[in-house]
């Protein structure tokens, strides 16, 4: 790997609600696909062929062009043993890297702790969205959750600039070092100062940003634009997290799934172009995942919760191509009507953690997992 001397960035795109893997990467030469999907299928002639067997949804042309350039690793048949078909539970399993018992600490939270044990940078991980995804949750790890970078911070309702300045000055004074030495009040003070500092630093990012890329207007495109702004401002942020959805297409799937992928693919295309314009494509890895796939058989207008899924890893240093096996549609090979996973998601996590970020994976993902070659050792 040629080094730019920069730290490696990881951008997570969570497809919330269970993306229909089978209509994203379609086995268009397999008659069983059309047998099981009489209503909710993708016509072979519309697909963007990846090889003789599989075609990408026509609603992901930007991803296809990155694929053609060898920048996309497609991980087929990803999942875990004993699939859980509850969104919440399966999300938690992916977030905590713990399929067997209920855990509370996120895999990326643990990674941040390893990267910055003293919590010196309040912005090592930034979530673009509201609320903390459990992936990032870990005791003592500060995480900024940014709804909209332009307005991020305290007192967004105060419009008047002068008034805002006075309010923030008062806040800074109210959260100054506490003379009472009460540990709770002091901790609140420190947290308030961290929040103010994080907001102050983050606010500078849009001002320092310039790019010729016009991002699409979708929420996911704007989130990735915010991620690019933070990345190029060089604030020491390593983990960029964002979610998009809902992919829970039980009914009326075709138009909804199409629109979602139109948005996700365009956003990835814009973001990647921005990375290239700023020379960050070789220092950035984009990881796209969903909590599970959907039922092989359609239900007339949509598809129900399934098991095996797909994930994508995209970046300038990625060895593009197919990883994992595409699961068989044969009934005997199915897992209760679903695609049977053949590689544990923690293999992908481990590959990213060790080969990309340079951390010890087993302590983060709770065990040893075979790694993929989508990043060279």
């Amino acid at each position: 790997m040629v080094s730019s001397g920069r730290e490696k960035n990881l951008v997570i795109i969570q497809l919330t609600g269970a993306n229909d893997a089978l209509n994203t990467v379609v086995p268009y030469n397999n008659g069983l696909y059309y047998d099981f999907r009489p209503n909710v299928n993708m016509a072979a002639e519309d697909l963007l062929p990846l090889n003789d067997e599989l075609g990408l949804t026509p609603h992901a042309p930007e991803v296809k062009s990155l694929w053609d350039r060898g920048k996309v690793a497609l991980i087929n048949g990803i999942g875990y043993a004993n699939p859980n078909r509850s969104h919440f539970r399966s999300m938690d399993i992916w977030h905590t890297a713990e399929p067997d018992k209920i855990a509370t600490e996120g895999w990326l939270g643990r990674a941040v702790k390893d990267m910055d044990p003293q919590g010196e940078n309040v912005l090592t991980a930034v979530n673009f969205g509201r609320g903390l995804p459990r992936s990032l949750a870990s005791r003592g790890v500060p995480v900024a959750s940014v709804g909209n970078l332009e307005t991020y911070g305290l007192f967004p309702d105060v419009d008047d600039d002068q008034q805002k300045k006075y309010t923030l000055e008062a806040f800074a004074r109210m959260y100054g070092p506490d003379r009472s030495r009460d540990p709770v009040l002091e901790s609140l003070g420190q947290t308030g100062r961290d929040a103010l500092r994080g907001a102050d630093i983050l606010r500078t990012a849009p001002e320092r940003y310039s790019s010729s890329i016009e991002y699409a207007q979708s929420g996911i495109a704007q989130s990735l634009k915010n991620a690019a702004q933070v990345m190029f401002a060089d604030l020491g942020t390593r983990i960029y997290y964002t979610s998009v959805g809902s992919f829970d297409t039980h009914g009326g799937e075709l138009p909804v799934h199409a629109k979602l992928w139109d948005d996700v693919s365009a956003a990835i295309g814009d973001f990647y172009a921005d990375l290239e314009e700023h020379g960050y494509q070789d220092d950035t890895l984009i990881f796209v995942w969903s909590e599970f796939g959907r039922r092989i058989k359609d239900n007339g207008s949509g598809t129900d919760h399934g098991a095996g899924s797909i994930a994508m890893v995209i970046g300038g240093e990625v060895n593009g191509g197919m990883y994992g096996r595409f699961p068989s549609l044969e009934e005997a090979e199915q897992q209760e009507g679903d695609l049977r996973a053949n590689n544990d998601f923690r293999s992908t996590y481990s590959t990213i953690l060790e080969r990309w970020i340079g951390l010890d994976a087993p302590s983060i993902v709770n065990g040893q997992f075979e790694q993929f070659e989508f990043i060279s050792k």
Partner: protein
Amino acid sequence: MSNADIALMAHLMRRAGFGATRDELEAAVAKGYEATVEELLHPGDPQDLPQDIIRRYHTEQAELRLSDGAAANWMYRMITTQNPLEEKLALFWHSLFATGYVKLNQANALLNQIQMFRTYGLGNYATLLVELSRDPAMIIWLDNNDNHKEAINENYGRELLELFSMGIGNYTEQDIKECARAFTGWTLGNAEYMSTRASRDSIWPYSRINWHFQYRDHDHDDGEKTFLGETGNFNGQDIVEIIARQEATARFVSTRLFQFFAADEVDEDGETVIEEMMKSYFDSGYEIRSVLRTLFNSDYFKSEKARWARVKGPVELVIGAVRMAGSYREPTPGIEQVARQAVYMGQGLLQPPSVEGWHEGIEWVDSGALVERINFVAHELANVQNPGVRRIIDRLAGENGGTFTPEELVDRCLDLVGPVEVSDDTKAALIEYAGLQGDVSLANSDEGDESEQRVAGLLSLAAATREYQLA
């Protein structure tokens, strides 16, 4: 009516409820402290709107299957109830017997559990534990439907002892097994039907029916068991009876109640109060109402030591701000956004992170959560059209000829959003802020004019203090 009486009543209402407006505090002080405690301990008509009306106006609550709508449904009750302790205590039991949506995918079962907490939460602890053991959401959450005569599943038995009654160190692994044996046959009557429906059908247009409890004698291990040194052919109720009479149980329940209602940290004086609570537990035959009465009427609880000795949880903070601002009293859209605010702050109702519940105290507040807390409360209190904010402004307009120096205004705002007691540094910062634009006159103000906005701005800032993060 003295300031000290108001401050004490505000303290009681923050702990036994979700805070109170000044009008409510004055009414309670007129009634007297102990009389108010008794009223809280004997909930009457909550004066809720009927559920069918609530669910008709809030479409996301129509089927109560998903956790967001169900959480909003409960939060709406917290906002409007006339029985604040009933809801606050339900929140306590929910944090202690933390049952989560993730395993159920059926939020109505959780709301039924919360209703069970309202019904039994102030009563006999043994009865509450039996009801908990029969609760369908709990049976699924801790796998008691997989606890069979020939193959025990220890999950519920273990957590009943460790997390729900005695605490670790007061029983052996063998006791857990015996406990689990006693609860074999305590299962769901319609689990197969429900799972068949779930696998065949993804859409349930008329909402799902409920699981129900069933005791299956043929799957119950009726053999002899030795549990905590006592031997007999115990069934689940017998086990609960034995648990309820343990000193460890009295200590566990009293301590948890103390930490939730009095102070996050237990000091030496706190230990003394816990001893008194334990005595009430036994004297009353395990009545939670008596234990709480002892706590609320204790000198410790009323003393300065217990003031501001807890970090407000997200739900407490959100409900407190909404009740003070007087917003969302009617079934208007948007209540699900209020529920989501608490999620952003780290507490999704009906979605505890695990059976251990939430990590409380100072762990509630990380930097992301603090930004959310401050911005939400500021948003509620900066809106002069919110009835509660209006009431505060109108009250101020009637005081002092409606004219205030910066010092006076800061004192009044801190008083009326709490009273909140702040450090000298905090107060100096607020006075400096208020002083930037000189005196305020509300004497001839119009709704939403600059004077009113200044007051609302200061109310928001008073609620943005670190002291306001405490209860």
